[in-house]
């Protein structure tokens, strides 16, 4: 039986974060970008809970903070999806390559 310690959680979080970052940077589909963003946020949540559990036992501030992040990420996802729908109506596409109207 493997002994699970702080480092395992941290490695999991880094892996999850990197996968999410890669998804955000490299996906062409806007839905996938939003999903990858959620991965990154959850990687941070794992970090927070792990640190709280191993290093800061006398209170639950890390876990409370992760709850906040979940709430914010839900709000962020809804705003993001709303923007996405508006963009989709305009361009009839979910391709990130098409969303370049900010070009100078």
């Amino acid at each position, binding site marked *: 039986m493997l002994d699970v310690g702080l480092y395992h959680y941290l490695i999991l979080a880094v892996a999850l974060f990197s996968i999410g*970052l890669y998804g*955000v*940077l*490299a996906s062409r589909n806007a839905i996938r*970008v939003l999903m990858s963003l959620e991965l990154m946020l959850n990687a941070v949540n794992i970090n927070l809970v792990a640190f709280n559990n191993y290093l800061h036992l006398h209170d639950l501030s890390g876990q409370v903070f992760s709850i906040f992040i979940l709430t914010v990420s839900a709000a962020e996802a809804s705003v993001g999806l709303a923007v996405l729908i508006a963009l989709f109506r305009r361009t009839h596409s979910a391709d*990130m*390559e098409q*969303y*370049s*109207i*900010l*070009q*100078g």
Partner: protein
Amino acid sequence: MIEPNSLVGNSVQFETLSNVWMVAIYPLIAFAIIMFGRWQGFLKTKPVTAAIVVLSTLMSFLHTLGVFNVYKEIIGITPTIGETFHWLHVGALHMDVGWMLDPTGFMMLFVVTVVSALIQVYTYGYMEEDPNFHRFYAYLALFNFSMLALVLAPNLVQMYMFWEMVGVSSYLLIGFWVSRPSAASAAVKAFLMNRVGDFGLLVGLLSFTFLTWAFWSGDAAPGLLSFPALGKASEYLMLHHGTAIFSIVGLLIFLGPVAKSAQLPLHTWLPDAMEGPTPISALIHAATMVAAGVFLIARMYPMYNMPGGEMIMTVIAWVGGLTAVVAATIALTQFDIKKALAYSTMSQLGYMVMAMGLGAYAAGLFHLMTHAFFKAMLFLASGSVIHGCHHEQDMRRMGGLHKTMPITAWVYLIGTIAITGVLPFSGFWSKDEIVAAAFSHQTLLYYIAVGTAGLTAFYMFRTYFMTFTGQYRGHHEAHESPLVMTLPLILLAIPSIGIGWLLSGFFVTDFPSFATLITAPASFHHHAAHHINWTVLGTSMVVVMGGFAAAFAMYSPMRLLDPALFVNGAKPLYTLFSNKWYWDEFYSFIARQVYLTVAQVSAWFDKAVIDGLVGLSAFSVNMSASGLRQLQNGRVQSYLLVFVLGLLLLSAYTAVQWLN
């Protein structure tokens, strides 16, 4: 913030004196009434307009008289009295406005108001037919305001403002007949020549202020460039910057009088200014405004006439002396009666400036005063002749006018005798003092002054004989001018005859003499009380008689000598004189050849080099922009990538730092 800051004076009469600024305000009110009301109601009638302006000048005169009566009582105690208010604060400096009175200022106030009033009466007859009658009177009032305010100015800053104001009035009045191209260009010429001088004056004032900055700083310090403090400031300037800088600043300021008083080499505008109506030539270009230059020299005396200022004084004396003789030689050959009188004015102004340069303060100002009367009268008489001969100015088409215009002829004769300096008349007393001053200071200038007196006698009697004696050579019937024009002439004849011996202190001993009334501030080589130098008097009388005899021989009806003999005998000299020493040609050469060449070269430089550099910088910005524009592609993901890469770099750097 207004706090009265009296220069001198704590007497009860101060209240009366402090209203003296009103002297300048009456003409300004008259100007405003006519300028803004000339199309309405009863102001449209010409007598009303003329009456308003004449009345304003009379008010100024009476007010001056009233103030003088109060001032007379304290004249021995406080020769200079004034009151100033802070106008601007610039750092630790403060500029003041206000008024200042001293005997010299009073003399100017009297001359300006008296001559102005008489000329404004005369103008009614001369300009009656003119469609722009009202505008002319409005300008006259504006000029009067500027000139009186210039005289009252307590510091150089305020004086400079009104100095420019009289310049503007002069410009407006020279170009009064705007439809004549010659009048318009003469006005522009007067303005430009004065601009050269006034630029020198401005640079002089600015450098004076800059170099004596510390002297004027502080609340207790006198107002910037105020006349009572000028002597101390000049000593400061001399002490801290030496004689060379001192002389340069002084001469820069002197450039103002050089242009305003038509001295060499900035004199060419004055003869052309005769394009203006004759009352203007009499008022501005003979009696008052051109004398403002001499007045400024008088106000600058604490600076010029201090130990170390000898260089400035020498330059002033020589400029005046050379102007006197050069203008007199040109006047010999003129056929236009007004041009001859204009060169005569220039020559007499040369005398005044020379006197100032020789340290003969009272003599120069005395000549200013007598000249103002008799030259205004001569110009008005010439205007009467021009009026009577139906706008003919060429003396070759006049002659014999003594019969048709007796009053004008007699008055002109009085003026001629006065300007030549024959014994009892006013010109003698003032000119004799100048010649005597030259005799005791500079032998060469003495010869110039005496020679010019001879030339003056010749050309003035030449104009008299050509105009009033012999046969009439014109085409139209000549007639005497109406009373409104002849009366001012007769009134001006009185001071032209009498003011000299009244104020010379030689015959009338119970009246204070001019030399005791008007004394130079901080005069270091002070002149003793006037006593007649018989050598000088005899010599100049002989020379004047010689000039008269020559004019009589050549131009009187007897025709003892033919002028053509001399014209052909001294051809090169005559050509030089009749072409005004080629000053105008010299200036147009400068303008056309030198200036235009420089302008073309700099135009090429501007187009090729400056524009090229500007174009190059624009091109390089454009190029780099189109390169950099590629970075902003509008894709959020690529921005994010750069952000992440930056973050990684930063983390790597921090890690390396931490590991070390």
